């Protein structure tokens, strides 16, 4: 094959036709995450979002869009302080949701609740 000096780049378009099995799994355990309206109060109060750039709002968004690699990186920053849980206006059990997300990506043992 001749060396053209350029190639075909990947598409950045999110394909919303693709399902996100991890989202469905977390939704099963924490049904309240369906109520997220992306207000961003969680990210604003998050202790670690200053470093990670990702508050809980973003975690849910990455989970829904199937951006699992970015999500896994962001999940490591959570300090489980629970501030996002206190502030959520829709009453989402954010802390539990993060734990479930970590379980999905095998970051924790199954015996942690």
């Amino acid at each position, binding site marked *: 094959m001749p060396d053209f000096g350029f190639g075909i780049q990947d598409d950045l378009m*999110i394909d*919303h*036709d693709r399902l996100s099995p991890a989202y469905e799994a977390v939704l099963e355990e924490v049904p309240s995450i369906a109520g997220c309206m992306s207000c961003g109060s969680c990210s604003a109060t998050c202790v670690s979002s200053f470093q990670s750039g990702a508050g809980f709002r973003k975690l849910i968004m990455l989970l829904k*869009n199937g951006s699992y690699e970015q999500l896994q990186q962001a999940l490591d920053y959570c300090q489980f302080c629970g501030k996002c849980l206190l502030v959520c206006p829709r009453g989402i059990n954010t802390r539990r949701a993060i734990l479930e997300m970590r379980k999905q990506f095998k970051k924790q043992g199954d015996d942690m609740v």
Partner: protein
Amino acid sequence: MKKICYDCVIVGAGPAGLKAASILDKQGYTVCILEKEKIPGGKLNIWHELFPHHESAQAIREQMLAGTAAPIHSPVTIKSISRTADGYCVKDRNEDEYCAPALLIATGFKPFDACRKEEYGYGIYENVITSVDLEQMFRQHRVVNASGEVPGKIAFIHCVGSRDIKVGSEFCSANCCITGIKQAIELKKMIPHVNICCFYMDLRLGGRFFEDCYKTSQVKYKVQYIRGRLSETNENTDQSVILRYEDTLAGRPAKITVDMVVLLVGMHPDPSILHLLPEIDERVGSDGFFGKGKIDQADQSSDDGLFFAGACTGPKSIIQSTDEASAVACRISLYLKEKLYTETEDQHARLWIRHSG
């Protein structure tokens, strides 16, 4: 060819017109309603369930019709409206005249013609419909796509014909978001396994219990909401529709394939009455609706006996239309009282005596 005189002539037998009539005739005034369609009820004839509590439009329509004894002339096509010394004279196509000192315009709104938003494919792709078309399907208890199959995935597009300089209407129609949510819930009740995705710029849910509808749709019915305005629709080989939008919260362009697209069309002013009204220009706002949107409708002062109520003064829900109609009916009542009655006193009470003629 006849001429009948009333105290108030109401143009439009929709919720606003019917409500105003019911208040005015209970106060003893003679009222008649002129309706351009064959049957009265206005848009109540095309809705199935009303937000926010899913009340039956049919039931509300019957209730409102039963609330007034005023004669409703339908269908009537108005040929001219002229001002006389005593008030107004409305002449129809058959040369019949309806005269009154007070004239109430309650002509309502026109849903946006979605064909004008050609990039959305309405009128071009079979599986793109409007919220009005969907409501028709609800009335017939049958929601199917162009091939006659039950859709598996449906997209709702908010702000079609509203907040859009390209179609010449920058106002927000204020009632389409809740309509979309209501219809999404109705669809989920009808077709439990259907996937619904709503594409919005903002969710304008200002009415009472609207936020509850939103939360219910998310948590109970798992309706998805994606923030991003649709740019164009395209059709696949199997007539499913592919949407192009940006997931603005993710900050990336995105696409989705659905079996049916529902465009939530805005509420536009109905211009058919404008050319008939004498000297109306100062009373029409920059968005094409009557009135200027000021507090207590101060700009619609009633020295000349011409009143407006309902969706013709701006996008409104049925609740708001009937409320405004009640307020305007009282205003009409005061106007007529002043015009038609003389106040006098006897030793016991204040009396109002009606002029003769």
